């Protein structure tokens, strides 16, 4: 039996529903030494900013039970170097590219989207409104992340939407009371998809020195530890919106990914776990196909949102 694994985000067709989480796969070069990265439905690159960023001072990483905290702080080469040095590699390989962008204000997001479209720098744009490691001072007081305010999510989505016709994915933060509101707000403002979850704000303390283990004090929690919460949020959002959901948060194995598909995610992203197993995205892809075959699904879309209740 052959299985159709194709899924759509806006007018973009991915050959399968497996991508990687931004910031865990660099720009794909390193992983090319492990496998043919064009096999994946899409490659999501590390957040890009207008100017190169140095990120936060080290230590930037702490391991935690079944997960890790990171406070990289969006160290990246900047959009120009990406277009010049990173993009050609990904295009040569024939990858479908989701470019993740981060701006310190609305105009920067717009500019990034315009540049990407103009230079054919991406097949879809993921707008990171939810990085917990770079607080926008303007909102730090009550609402440090754009994604924590449904209103701001709407405003940012609409503004970027104006500037690009590329499929637009809004990346949401799990650090909210209600994950449905920002998702609906993104949908209403023209997003073609939402992706969730970004990391949970967490902390760890060295009891010997009584200092935070991360120089940045707090960082973003990722890995299998957050999976049950991420899965619940993906389920809630999938029921509430009509655009595709890209699900992530602790996916390690095909089984984990299939949970997200059943909960309603149309696409799944493997994140931190690629640090441990660089082949994980391929294993997940193979496992999903296998599951479809074993469960008599001719199209992976039959699995999406197939949760049985009662």
């Amino acid at each position, binding site marked *: 039996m052959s299985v159709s694994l194709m899924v759509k985000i806006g007018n973009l067709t991915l050959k399968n529903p497996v991508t990687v989480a931004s910031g865990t796969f660099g720009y794909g070069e390193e992983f090319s030494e492990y496998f043919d990265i064009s096999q994946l439905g899409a490659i999501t690159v590390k957040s890009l900013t207008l100017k190169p960023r140095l990120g936060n001072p080290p230590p930037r990483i702490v391991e935690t039970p079944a997960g890790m905290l990171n406070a990289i702080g969006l*160290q990246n080469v900047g959009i120009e170097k990406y277009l010049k040095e990173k993009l050609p590699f990904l295009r040569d390989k024939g990858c479908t590219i989701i470019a993740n962008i981060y701006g310190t204000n609305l105009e920067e997001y717009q500019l990034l989207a315009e540049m990407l479209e103009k230079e054919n720098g991406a097949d879809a744009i993921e707008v990171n409104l939810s990085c917990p490691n770079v607080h926008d001072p303007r909102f730090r007081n009550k609402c440090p992340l754009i994604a924590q305010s449904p209103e701001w999510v709407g405003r940012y989505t609409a503004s970027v939407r104006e500037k690009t016709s590329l499929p637009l994915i809004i990346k949401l933060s799990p650090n909210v009371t209600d994950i449905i509101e920002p998702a609906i707000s993104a949908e209403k403002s023209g997003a073609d998809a939402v992706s969730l979850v970004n990391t949970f704000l967490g902390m760890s303390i060295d009891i010997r020195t009584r200092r935070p283990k991360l120089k940045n004090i707090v960082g973003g929690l990722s890995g299998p530890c957050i999976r049950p919460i991420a899965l619940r949020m993906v389920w809630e959002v999938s029921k509430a919106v009509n655009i595709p959901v890209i699900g992530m948060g602790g996916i390690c194995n095909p089984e984990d990914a299939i949970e997200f598909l059943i909960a309603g995610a149309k696409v799944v992203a493997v994140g931190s776990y690629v640090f441990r197993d*660089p*082949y994980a995205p391929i294993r997940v892809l193979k496992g999903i196909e296998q599951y479809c075959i074993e469960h008599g699904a001719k199209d992976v879309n039959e699995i999406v949102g197939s949760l049985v209740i009662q």
Partner: protein
Amino acid sequence: MKLFDCVVTSHTEVAPEHFRLVLKNKELAEVSQPGQFVMIEVTETWDPFLRRPMSIERMFSDSISILYKVVGKGTKLLSSIRVGEKISVQGPLGNSFPIDLDFKDFFIVGGGIGIAPFPGLAEKIIRIRGGNLHVIIGAKTHSQVLCERDFREMGCRVYVVTEDGSAGEKGLVTDVLDKLKVEVHSVVYACGPIQMIKKVHQICEERNWICYASLEAEMACGIGVCLGCVVPVKYEIENEMMARVCKEGPIFDTRVIQWEKI
């Protein structure tokens, strides 16, 4: 740079809480260079979640060895692995120790488990240069002096120094280095606690020697993508930059490190 299932062919406690693990895999052994490291999966479950970075101690025809100290739960789990079992090893990773043939004298300075990357380097230097290799082994106490016999058998000049004076001289590796007044163009290879490396660097600066240090950092990926393991460096070109210990390192010419930020 690949993922290998290695078979454990030997696993011995070489000192209290210190183990040598021999991992068989021909492909891995053949491409490994002194100074490089591997990332080892210590469990099949999700706790610990990440692999553990370990320097390659020596390279043999079809295997590599690592030398490690039990400090936390990952290394504790590792210490219970048995001969014959398989273990997932990613590597070799990072750069390796440069061996500049211009130098007359070569110094190796290893503090505690920091000696781990040096037996393989010593072997290579001796193979290439035939000698002039001084090895300073530092330890807390006599039972923790590592690899002394290995280095002696290779024909290195070995200096042992312990904090409690129970073996060799009493003091720190840097005390020994300080006293060795070798007034020639030399190179020092250092690995150990960061404060030790800093001191070695300062001694080298004064003498106009080169120091190559193997640095440590919390690592998630080991292959340069997570940007977790950075160290602030000063390059000629860029005013300030973050170098990845796993990719641009773990071996750094200590002059490029922004020591004031550490």
